[in-house]
């Protein structure tokens, strides 16, 4: 039930805090004026921008008659438009997202994080859409800014279940082809996929002038691998088994994870993609607010 989803995902405390937050797109996006984001397009908008000489074919309704009365020449008014930001929340719902070492799975965490982002953007009168994926797109809701969009998206979040394997690269490419207008793409995923497939997908969006934020959600144990006893590990997606001594390989494992994250960070930075690593041990709201404030400071 939409009300239930709302109550579930949007804690009043969090909501109140979000009221003071904003998520501004750094890069200019297309859109109409209703929100806070400036459009690169000079057309009809709320604010007068400048006059230009009438050219045959311009709409007559845009002729500034006052200026004609004064000058006996025809000029057209140009306006700056405040357009809607089109936001796309990409939620990874592959089976690996179901991993939890401290009671909260990455998927659950990501749902809350996504819900907060959705709320924030809709509050800003931006359009928000949702795509839930694993190795393929499972759910897609086009971006809207209507009042019912929040409930729609929260319901989708509520029903998102972890299943199947991951193929982030394909999904990103597919969405990139779908999305025509520039917007803000927010990927919430553990990125447990081949970086050589993930990064091209992200860069595809950048190529299309989208702004991209990647929330890299990991479980603390995935990052630290702090298991005590010998164990047989079973891949949640492939079912593969491997027995090892965690304490013996921990340092190497952590090094490998850090190295991987560093690679992602580097590549993202090069493409001007915001890379936000988060551990599920950090409350999602704190993680989000921390990011938003940092983003605001950096402009």
């Amino acid at each position: 039930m939409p009300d239930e989803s709302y109550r579930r995902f949007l804690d009043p405390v969090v909501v109140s805090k979000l009221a003071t937050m904003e998520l501004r797109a750094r890069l200019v996006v297309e859109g109409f004026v209703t929100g806070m984001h400036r459009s690169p397009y000079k057309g009809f908008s709320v604010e007068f921008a400048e006059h230009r000489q009438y050219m045959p074919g311009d709409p007559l309704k845009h002729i500034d008659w006052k200026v004609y009365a004064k000058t006996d020449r025809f000029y057209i008014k140009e306006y700056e438009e405040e357009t809607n930001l089109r936001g796309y929340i990409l939620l990874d719902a592959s089976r690996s997202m179901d991993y939890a070492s401290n009671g909260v799975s990455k998927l659950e965490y990501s749902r809350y994080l996504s819900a907060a982002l959705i709320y924030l953007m809709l509050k800003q009168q931006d359009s928000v859409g949702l795509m839930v994926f694993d190795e393929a797109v499972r759910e897609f809701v086009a971006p809207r800014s209507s009042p019912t969009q929040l409930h729609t998206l929260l319901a989708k979040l509520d029903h998102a279940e972890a299943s199947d394997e991951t193929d982030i690269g394909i999904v990103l490419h597919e969405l990139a082809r779908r999305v025509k207008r520039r917007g803000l793409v927010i990927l919430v995923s553990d990125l447990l996929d081949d970086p050589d497939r993930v990064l091209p997908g992200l860069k595809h969006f950048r190529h299309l002038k989208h702004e991209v934020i990647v929330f890299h959600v990991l479980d603390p144990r995935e990052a630290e691998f702090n298991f005590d006893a010998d164990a047989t590990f079973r891949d949640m997606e492939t079912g593969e088994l491997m027995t090892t001594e965690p304490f013996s390989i921990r340092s190497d494992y952590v090094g490998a994870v850090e190295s991987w994250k560093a690679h992602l960070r580097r590549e993202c930075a090069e493409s001007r993609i915001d890379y936000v690593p988060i551990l599920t041990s950090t409350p999602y709201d704190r993680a989000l607010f921390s990011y938003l404030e940092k983003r605001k400071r950096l402009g």
Partner: protein
Amino acid sequence: MRSSLISRSGRGSGSAWSASFRCGGVKENRLNFTFLNGAFLFAALAALLPLLIHLISRRRVATIDFSSLRFLKELERKRIRRVRLRQILLLIVRSLIILAAALALARPTLKGSFGGGAHAKTSVAIVIDDSASMSRENGDMFSDAVGLAREIAGLLDDGDEAYLIGAGEPPHALLSDGTFSPDVVLEELEGMSTGPAATDYSSAIELASGLLENSRNLNRELYLIGDMQRSGWAAAGADQPEAYADTEPVDDTEPRTYVLPLIGPTVNIGLPSVSVERRYGAAPGHFAVTARVSNHGRRGAEALVRLFVDGEQAGQAGVELDSGGTGTVRFAATVRESEWHGGWVELPDDALDTDNRRYFVIPSSRRTEVLVVRPDSGDGLDDSDYIERALDPGSSGDRFSVSVIGHGALARQDSDRFSVVVLADVGRLDDGSARWLDRHVADGGGLLVVLGNKTDIRHWNSSRLSELSGVEIVAPVDRPDGVRLAPALRGHPLLDGLVFGERLVDDILVRRAFDIRAPEVEEVLELPGVGSLLVIDRKRIAEAPAGLGGEVAVLATGIDPSWSDLPRSGFVVPLLHRLAERLSRTSSRPASVTVGENLLVRLQKPPTGRVEVEMPSGRTVAAELRDIPGPAATVSATEPGVYRFSVDGRVVALGAVNVDPRESDLTPADRGEVEDLLSARLVTFVGEGARLEDEVLQARYGRELWRAFLYAALVLLALEMYLARPRFA
């Protein structure tokens, strides 16, 4: 050197050993890996524990769902494989630690002369033959044995342990707790001497092996030094070494055995036995002394035997002996009857002096107390009358003292008083009388049962008398025409020496007798036409001297004119005299034992004071009193000679102790026989000319390896700690 000590080859018959002397040397010189504490090898099984724990742990490894194995896979090629290898190494190292520790505890040892070996600690048991046979040649042979033992003691090194055992019966350990000091061994050797006992090599070796079993030293050695007398290898009561014909496989746990045979003269004449018998019908105090003489040489010989009674020569006689044969010499001795007398027969000095005397004792000859038991009822003459008259002192020349009672009074008699009891046609006996007779016979007393008219066959066959005599009565046999007694009696040892007039015996007819059966009695006088006329059975009483009680005789015909002509013939007197004399011998039989046994003498009555024993050497000890039944005294017979038992200064008995006649046969067991007897051991024969030192020390080389295994365990432990250290803080 040994050759200077053993210089007797060529004398006597030492050829059985001389061949071996030339090829002396250690039998084997091989590299031998062994474990001194083999029981700890079982601990090596604990080396499987790490593997078991590993296998059990593996089963308990939890399966954890994890988001992705991609990083683990990346690490597999390098790190995880290294981890697995490390796990395997740890498993191997931990198993090796346990294995090395267990092997160290088992004390592995490399034995043998392999250049670079060190003297391994040794425990030695020196068995010296200190029996009578080693005193030959005035003790020189024993001196040689002690010299060899000193040589062995001289080879002892620091940490070496020694035991000293004498092989004279019974084998005795002079250093039963062992000693690490060669000086102590030398001191004990100085105090050793030969004794009068026989040899028992087998028991001595067993004793020595038992002492060495407790040793923890690498090497264990047993030295057997002696004349290898063949009789010394036989177990008590068994025959000669042929009894040990089976060869056993060598048992590595047995100590290495060195046999050092000594050669000496083996020609010897001995006195295996001497017996003293009162002569039948002889005047009081007259005894026959019979000595057996044995020749253990390979040639015939003559022997002059002398008789000594109470320390004075009383006779001498010569005897010719075949090679390996025996002869008999008889002497007549006359002594005062009322006293005990001791004596000996003696040979001239020869190779072995210890066996040249054989001691004997002549008991004090008191009148033989005879108790005649008659039926309580009856008129007129009956068997007891005739018996009493036959044994009457007037006719016996104070030989017998006869008492006559009714059978009802038997149980009230003093059982120690009478040497012989005669049941003269006693029909039935009550239980008390039967028990009395039991004790009397067990005490060595003789019993003569004369059957007659009043004999109750059914009662007899179910009574104690039947068991005591071994006789079962079947039925009376009547021969109205009579059966002549003479053929049965002539030549019977009981009547040996008697001269019969033909009519004296020939006219005796037996008209009635009982048909008796005595299947287990050996001494039976048969009367054709009647059956067994007289049976004499020796009762075996375990507690009695030589295990023998008194004798029981049964006369199947009555001393009654209606049964036979015996009562009215003069023959009844010598017959009854001989029977009474025969039956009285057990109670008065003098005691004679071998050195090493206990000398037990019967006493006429319970002593009123302490019984003291004067040993042949003059030493006086207290005797131990026994009731066997009947009063007796016993003392340990440690030296040959006559032992005097006294109460309040009065001699109450004498006993004779002699050297074991087995010692007279000086023939040694040959090498093959000894090898067979010791077939389960690693044996080295060290003959004359061989260097004992060389032979012994070569075998002692060896190296204990427990330290190496312990160090290996410690190194492995350090390696384990290094491999198992935490890799991630």
